[in-house]
Structure formats: structure tokens, C-alpha cells
């Protein structure tokens, strides 16, 4: 360490602090939606570029079709805008692309007292334990005839 050198450095340092840390912490706290917003912005900006050649699309034209200001589109394309579902849907309609996908729901009955697998197909004992009735328990017949309940083999 050279004290004189560091003293001279301190004379040059402004009283104004950097805004970096504050912004960095904000990005950290909002990381999850910021990541999604950036991915959406990448899709939109690429699609505008793609449709520029075929449909004459531009950021200005997108703004007009969405009935928003060009400044809002600029902001949105930075990938740091907390978009509403309404805005996302409108953009999807105008550009004819999908920006987000919601997984479909599936209904599955789960029985915890027996374990089914290809290696251990439904036995007579277990089948009766499930419903107390006599069913088709031949290997590969993973369903109970009378109740129409389907058994999904595990481990496949």
C-alpha cells in the first residue's frame, strides 16, 4: 500500500455514489419476472424483424395496432417491463405468435396404499385391496373393469 498514492486518489473521488448496487439488488429481487420479460422481448423483437420483410411490421406499426405509444413499445422491448396478461394476449394476436404457454390440466387418481409397476403388475390381492371386488388382474391389464378407474404403470 502506498498511502500518498491513495490519498491522491481520494482527492479525485466524487461525493456522488454509483447507482449500480441499488439497481443490482433490485434486479436480484425481481429476477424471476425480469427473466420472463426479457424472453418475451426477445421473441417480439425477433418477430418484428421477421415480419418487417413480409408484412412491413415495425415497432411503430405494432404500437399503432396495439393502440399504445411507440415509447411504450421501446420500453417493453428492453425486456424489463412487468407485462399484464392482457398486453401479452394483444401482442400475440397482432403478431400471430405464442409468447407464453399455460400447461393443460390432467386429472389423475392416486392410490397410495399400493405401488404399481411393469415389474410388479396388479396382483389379485392388491386389486381387491383397492376396491374389494374381483377384477381383471392379468399382466398388462392395468385397469379395473367395474369402476372404470385406470391405473397408470409407474417406472416406464
Amino acid at each position, binding site marked *: 500500500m502506498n498511502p500518498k498514492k491513495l490519498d491522491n486518489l481520494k482527492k479525485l473521488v466524487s461525493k456522488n455514489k454509483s*447507482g449500480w448496487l441499488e439497481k443490482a439488488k433490485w434486479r*436480484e429481487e425481481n429476477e424471476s419476472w425480469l427473466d420472463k420479460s426479457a424472453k418475451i422481448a426477445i421473441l417480439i*423483437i425477433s418477430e418484428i424483424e421477421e415480419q418487417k420483410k413480409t408484412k412491413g411490421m415495425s415497432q411503430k406499426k405494432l404500437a399503432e395496432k396495439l393502440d399504445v405509444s411507440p415509447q411504450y413499445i421501446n420500453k417493453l422491448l428492453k425486456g424489463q417491463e412487468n407485462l399484464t396478461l392482457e398486453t401479452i394476449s394483444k401482442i400475440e394476436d397482432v403478431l400471430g405468435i405464442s409468447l407464453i404457454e399455460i400447461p393443460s390440466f390432467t386429472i389423475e387418481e392416486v392410490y397410495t396404499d399400493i405401488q404399481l409397476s411393469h415389474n410388479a403388475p396388479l396382483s389379485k390381492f392388491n386389486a381387491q385391496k383397492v376396491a374389494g371386488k374381483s377384477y381383471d388382474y392379468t399382466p398388462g391389464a392395468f385397469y379395473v373393469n367395474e369402476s372404470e378407474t385406470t391405473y397408470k404403470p409407474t417406472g416406464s
Partner: protein
Amino acid sequence: MEIVTIFDNCLYAVKYDGETSDELERLFDEWSDVTILYEFFTSNKKDLTYYQLNIKSAIEETLKEAKEFRKRFIRLSNKKNPNLDSIFKNLDDLDVRVYELVKRKSKRKWLRIYAIRIDTNVYLITGGAIKLTHKMEERPHTALELTKLEKCRNYLIENGVFDIDSYREMLNE
């Protein structure tokens, strides 16, 4: 030119005349801005051939790397005496010498933060860039960073942030 504090008594950054942010703040703003990254990779599309990436993937990669880079600096900000010598290395990977006001870089993939080493674990950030080529001189935006490093080094020398004895030792080497 203004020098602002990033970490008290050890890490500083330059805020150039006419700029609204210091260099560290500007870099992380740009590395998280999809529009800026799209324009950058469109202009430097040819350099992406080496990485076998298209523009979309290059932007995603930059966002991901910038996030990790940011986390590295946040972790350092929580330390009492951050070991900055461990994250800033000489510009030339083969040069490991430590000399007066040596020009250094901190990197993640193609992201670079350039700085001047003032003393042990004391640095001044002068700029940064997305470096897609081998040599900084090969592209205008990285060549500009070399100019900034030199300009800032001269500024420190002119203002006495300089150990003349160390400099003489370096000349005699």
C-alpha cells in the same frame, strides 16, 4: 471525467463527461437491455459464427452471463475486504506481472469489465464490452476500450495517483 465509489476504499468507476451513469452501472444496464443486445448482435452477426449461435441465443447467453457476473459483484460488495486481485487479471492472459497502474480485466464468457489496478485490491473501472474477437484491436467497440484504459491511466498519473519508485523499477526490469 468523474470518479465514483462502487465499494468503499477499494473499487471505483469512471463516469465520463456527458454520460448519465458510471461505467459499471452502464455496463449492467446495457447487458440487461434486450433492444441494445439485439442491435449489438445484429451488427456483429459474423462474429457469432465462431460460437455457432444465432442472435436470439446470443442475447439469452448474455443475459444469463450478465446475471452471474452481477451476482459475483454483489457477493464482493458484502465482504469487508474484497479480494479484487482475484477477479481482475492482466489484459494479456499470458502476462502475470504486477506493475504500476497495470491494465486489467474481469471476465465471464464474452463479457469484459476493464480496470486499472491502483494498489493491492484497489481498482478503477474504466469500461467494458462484449468481446467476440481474439484481439481488442480487431473491433472498434473493443479498441475504444483500450483508448479509455490509456486515457484513465494518464489521468491518474497526472493527478499523482502513481508510485514513481515502482514505475522506475518497472522501467529497469
